[in-house]
């Protein structure tokens, strides 16, 4: 399964954010998208998810039935500030989601087990969930929907280390059947979790050659690359 991004460009009024991006992502790998603040990582995700229109370019998905223009149903987008309908309880939200997608492979409790949401929390209003719990809930919905592409914008920011580890393990399990792209500011996280590092630099994307991800030389190379960003 492959995600092709061809000549993608996006600018806001007088500011060019993304310019002629050409890149291919594959399933079986977790891609770590690195870039400095304001480099355009979220804009890049928003373009793929069609939250915003882009100026030019095409996005295709090849998933066993040829190369076709991507459909938003193929994408699951976990945003950095988790958004969940706060008037529902976790259980109600999950039931609703399973209903509309006509999914009944597992019981509701089994689904909650995937992201380790305890029974006593399932009947709480989502309004009363912590940031980390909301994040888990958002991730769970995206996992159940089983989209081919999963975009995660700073998914582990402000989560405690236990939840971070749980989510990392979950993503590793998912990567074989999905194309996973994860944006982060934390280089250590990208190097620890991701199979490929993609750098958003000077409005364009480049995949850093996969070397020994833990070597200091590689880390320095990435930082140098990020520093080179004109960042206008």
């Amino acid at each position: 399964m492959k995600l092709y991004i061809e000549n993608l460009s996006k600018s806001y009024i007088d500011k060019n954010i993304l310019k002629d991006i050409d890149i291919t992502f594959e399933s079986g790998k977790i891609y770590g998208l690195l870039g400095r603040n304001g480099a355009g990582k979220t804009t890049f995700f928003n373009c793929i998810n069609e939250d915003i229109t882009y100026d030019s370019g095409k996005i295709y998905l090849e998933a066993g039935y040829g190369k076709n223009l991507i459909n938003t149903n193929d994408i699951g987008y976990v945003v950095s500030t988790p958004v969940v309908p706060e008037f529902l309880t976790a259980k109600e939200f999950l039931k609703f989601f399973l209903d509309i997608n006509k999914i009944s492979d597992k019981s509701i409790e089994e689904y909650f087990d995937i992201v380790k949401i305890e029974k006593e929390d399932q009947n709480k209003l989502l309004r009363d969930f912590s940031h980390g719990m909301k994040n888990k809930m958002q991730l769970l919905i995206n996992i159940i929907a089983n989209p081919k592409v999963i975009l995660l914008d700073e998914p582990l920011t402000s989560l405690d280390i236990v939840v971070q580890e749980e989510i990392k393990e979950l993503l590793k399990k998912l990567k074989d059947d999905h194309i996973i792209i994860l944006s982060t500011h934390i280089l250590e996280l990208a190097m620890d979790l991701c199979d490929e590092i993609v750098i958003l630099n000077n409005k364009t994307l480049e995949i850093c050659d996969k070397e020994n991800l833990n070597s200091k030389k590689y880390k320095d190379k990435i930082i140098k690359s990020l520093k080179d960003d004109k960042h206008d």
Partner: protein
Amino acid sequence: MIRTLYYSLKIDTYYAINSFIYLLRKLPILKDLFTEDAYTSKILKLLSGFFGILLSFTKMVFSRYLYFLIIYIISNYISKDNRTFYHVFFIFSIIGMFINNKLLTANMKKYLSIVVFKMDAKNYLKYNLFWTLLTNLSLNSLCFYLFNLDMKIGFILVLFQLGVRVIGESLELMYFRKYANFWYNNTFLYFSILSILLLFSFSPAINLFINQDMIFISTLASIVISVVSYFYICSFNDYTSIFKRINTLSNAINNDLSNNRQSIVEVKKKDIQIDEKKISTKNGYDYFNTIFFERHRDILLRTVKFISFVLIVSYIILGIFAIDNKEFSIMLNDFLSNRLGWFVLIMYFINRGSIVTQAMFYNCDHAMLKYNFYREPSVIIGLFKMRLKTISQINLLPALIISFGNAILLFIGGETSVLNFVGMFLFIILLSVFFSLHYLVIYYLLQPYNQEMQMKKLSYSVVSLITYLICYWASKLYVSSLTFSIIGLVLCIIYILISLKIVENYAPRTFKIN
């Protein structure tokens, strides 16, 4: 304090300048001329500063003028006696003492100044008080002059208002220090005091006035007490910790979101539990929609029930008067037979459409629109229809009461034409559906809120204003109710059909987070 005053005014000026440039960069055509460099242009900053400050000043004068105008209209309505205005102004000043305190309120400017910029809280507060008193003194004096009122009594009343203002601030501080809470959270106390005062402002109707001597003595007393109050305010030194407690970022943002709108539409504790029977047989979007309305019972159903109760009581009173007094009955019959436009305005005010759409956005769509499945055209249209049905049902109860109430009053007045009864009945019902639909349509087509849940679309405000103006205009019409009903019915049906079609075609594109 001078230093605080200087920096505070500087923040205000920068805020005015940058807001003005921001506004310019949002306007069609102009937005292409002003790039991000606009914020660094000295000439543009100077011009924006001038216009920004002018705009703020005009807004201040205009709102005070409006306040005087409202008192003027109310006074004229209560009694034609010249003393009424001063009486109402006096009472309203006391009401202001309780409801218009600024000392401990949270807002973004205070948050930035005290929490972020770490300005001295006590100095900041003294500056704020000084600034409020100064603007009140000048604006109130100006308005007394503009309204051609007695300047001598006017000036005494202005001093009275300044005095009670300081007293009000110190009382609030005292209450907060004692109970660690605001007095307005004590609903019983709040409504009791305000109701008594409000009732007393209408006393000129029974020829009961606060005379000049009383105003004069009260002013003297208020000035003396305000001096003591000022010393009390100044003697307290721990404002920083109070401000940090009450002026949290979320409080500041909420309060800046026009009249704390978010708290108006939040899910109330008592609505968390839902009767299982109501949702056990439902699935999918029906289940979702039912839970949404059940969790918002407080802001929807209870208010509608309260409005319905008030309507029933009003119709019973009117009915008794109509039976008892032939003259009143004739007058009422004339009103119902020729001033049906008034009910357009009444229906506009009692319809819950606006608050429902706010709740929809804050508690539901704001989050759900981030999910791709929720943005599917079929889902948007399907949920729109479901919501329309539920809102229409909610609004139907007061509409039915008005329809039957009018019919009974007409019958008491001697009306016999069946056509008149049926026309009016159908018109009121359809009007209720119209308003339910109207708010939903403009919400779906103009979705006015942004990611931060602030209302950002001018077009939404313009449409809302036009809606109000049309309703107001309709209330002024003197047309036979039958003609009005027929024209109204036709227009409502046309609007409903057209807007449904437009929503079907455009909502999937327009219903998104800005």
